[in-house]
């Protein structure tokens, strides 16, 4: 079993197609939708956690790419701007997945992109605009 977090971007012509259902049925992939932004006549964006056998995940992703959908790792869409961060820790208790961790000895922040689900809860808690989610 493998787990990947991806951002799926697709043109509006696919909005009425049950792509996620195909992913589940055809490729035996478990899909957890973490975030979705789908507006009529606009590009849609989904943040997904997909899990399954490695070969199934690869085949499923190839299927999406063949359809013409853009797919990329979630980590590429999230930025922690370390030079803007003052290491205050205000964001840390709001993070539901532990992606923002505090080294209790040094009282410094570490940001683990792989654990981030792009929920955005940390963004209003940061007074220094040190976290960016690019969608």
């Amino acid at each position, binding site marked *: 079993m493998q787990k990947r977090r991806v951002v799926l971007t697709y043109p509006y012509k696919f909005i009425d197609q049950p792509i996620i259902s195909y992913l589940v049925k055809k490729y035996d992939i478990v899909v957890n939708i973490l975030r979705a932004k789908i507006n009529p006549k606009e590009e849609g964006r989904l943040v997904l956690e997909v899990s399954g056998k490695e070969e199934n995940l690869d085949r499923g992703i190839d299927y999406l790419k063949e359809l013409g959908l853009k797919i990329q790792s979630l980590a590429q869409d999230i930025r922690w701007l370390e030079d803007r961060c*003052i*290491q*205050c*820790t*205000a*964001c*840390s*208790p*709001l993070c539901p997945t532990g992606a923002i961790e*505090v080294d*209790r000895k*040094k*009282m*410094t922040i570490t940001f683990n992109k792989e654990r981030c689900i792009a929920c955005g809860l940390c963004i*209003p*808690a940061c*007074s*220094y*605009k040190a976290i960016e989610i690019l969608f």
Partner: protein
Amino acid sequence: MAKTIAEINEKIKKGEVVVITAEEVIDIAKEKGIKKASQEIDVVTTATFGPMCSSGAYLNIGHSKPKIKLGGGRTYLNDVPAYGGFAAVDIFIGATALPGDDPRNKIHPGEFKYGGGHLIEDLVAGKDIKLVANAYGTDCYPRKKLETWINIKDINEAVLFNPRNAYQNYNVAVNLSDKIIYTYMGILKPSLGNANYCSASQLSPLINDPYYKTIGVGTRIFLGGGEGYIVWNGTQHNPDVPRTEGGVPKTPAGTIAVMGDLKKMSPQWLRGTSITGYGVNLTVGIGIPIPILNGEILQYTTVKDEDIYAPIVDYSKNESNILTEVNYAQLKSGKIEIKGKEVPTASLSSYAKAKEIAEILKEWINSGDFLLSEPVQLLPSVGSKIGFKPLKERPIE
């Protein structure tokens, strides 16, 4: 044997001074004992880096041709209103000032993207600032409108002047209500969802000199990356509060007013701050050297997180409502227990950056660049009867 500030300065000049941070002193004093440590250590550096609302800067922008009198008119810097009720071209920027078209909390919680604090950061960073002013015009100052770019390097004076900074201890904020609230202590989730604190605790300047026995008017300090001075007690300075056996206040207490040359400061240590749902602020870096004049002064600087208590206050109520108290070792562990519930904690002030400032100040003193100053007057201490009074409201008939 007791030391004087003049003797410590002689050691600084000769390169013989022993300087350590308020964090390092804890273990060293424990190992050597107070008496021996106080003889060997000359200076303990303390620091803090957190949002401090009562901050600002005054500028003298120089006279235009023809001249304009900004006083009595309206002046904006990057659309942020500046106070001009002085002579012709002196203006004051307050850290919390907002442009007229900022939506504020119309869509709650407001984002407060740009204001006085950001303006001060941009000015210090050497960025060009857009000045727009309107005046009423006089025979000696005929000009009525001015629109120009200004830069900190071109104007006459730029001075940081903060009426209240470096609070000696502060509340821990929680929310007992069933709705999320947006406060100057950050986002507070409902039903004790989190607890926010704001102090450099064992590194904090006034916590290390709790009765203000060395810190006073005229004390030279690290301010915003440059040198500054304590010029008065801060507003709301309130020394007569409950204290621990070691003298550390158990609630917010002392404060300082500080000033220094903004031209020599750094945007790294003066940061514009956007507090969601609350407003704009300035995060200020302050470092204060404590001269170890005797064993008693050293003893105060050995204060550690476990010995410093802060009140837990419910910010969902308008009246201050202290639930219980907690120490900073507990707060820094990441969770505390309130009413039987485990509550995650977070800090608004940066301990890591405070430590960096304490190290920089140590380096300045070690290199001989920074001499200690003798305060001309100590801050009002316990028994001074300086209090923190509420407003006595009298209805205007």
